[in-house]
């Protein structure tokens, strides 16, 4: 299980390849990458605040819960904080399992829980305005799937 919370960009392709090769013939890898949306050019930048200490703790708990529910060879979560511009990669998760159903379900679960249970907050900058992104009811509702 690999958890990284960092301000610096990460190399999505290299991390995906490294994670997959590290699992040495495990059958199925699913990755998710979250990217700052372009939204037609209106958004200039996004800033992500987090709660150092609790962030790592929450992500570890979510990953451990995934490992309890599904048979996983490994999982990886990388999440950035700080200022990012459209097109930049915000975060990724990766799951490896002998069977694709486990890898898909675990990655989907990690994303749902990370969205609503890991202490990150997004602020969007467009023109003169700066606004905190509101949590979506749909994101909270998504947790009930599990």
């Amino acid at each position, binding site marked *: 299980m690999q958890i990284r919370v960092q301000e610096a960009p990460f190399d999505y392709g290299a991390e995906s390849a490294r994670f997959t090769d590290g699992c040495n013939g495990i059958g199925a890898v699913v990755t998710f990458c*979250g990217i700052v949306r372009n939204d037609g050019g209106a958004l200039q930048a996004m800033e*992500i*605040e*987090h*709660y150092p*200490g*609790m962030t790592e*703790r*929450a992500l570890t708990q979510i990953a451990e819960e995934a490992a309890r529910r599904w048979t996983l060879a490994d999982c990886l979560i990388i*999440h950035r904080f700080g200022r990012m511009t459209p097109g930049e990669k*915000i*975060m990724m998760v990766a799951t490896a399992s002998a069977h694709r159903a486990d890898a898909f379900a675990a990655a989907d679960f990690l*994303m749902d829980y*990370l*969205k*609503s*249970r*890991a*202490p*990150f*907050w*997004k*602020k969007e900058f467009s023109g003169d305005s700066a606004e*905190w*992104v*509101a*949590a979506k009811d749909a994101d*909270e509702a998504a947790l009930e799937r599990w």
Partner: protein
Amino acid sequence: MTLDILYFAWLRERIGLPRETVTTEAATVADLVAELSAREDRYALAFSDLSAVRVALDQDLADFDAPLAGVREVAFFPPMTGG
């Protein structure tokens, strides 16, 4: 008891500071919120709609009726929007 209180996102902005240390006899999170809100308008404003506020005790999510006994760090923040 002495508590470190942390504020994040718009709670931090409305209250105007990221963290403070308070001495309190509040028994629960709700008691602490009432005590802070009584102190100054900026707290009362930040805590005016608790449905939009989440709390963590020693870095674990908790409810507003959770007891504060033994707690060192309380954090208030809006619903999370990561990912």
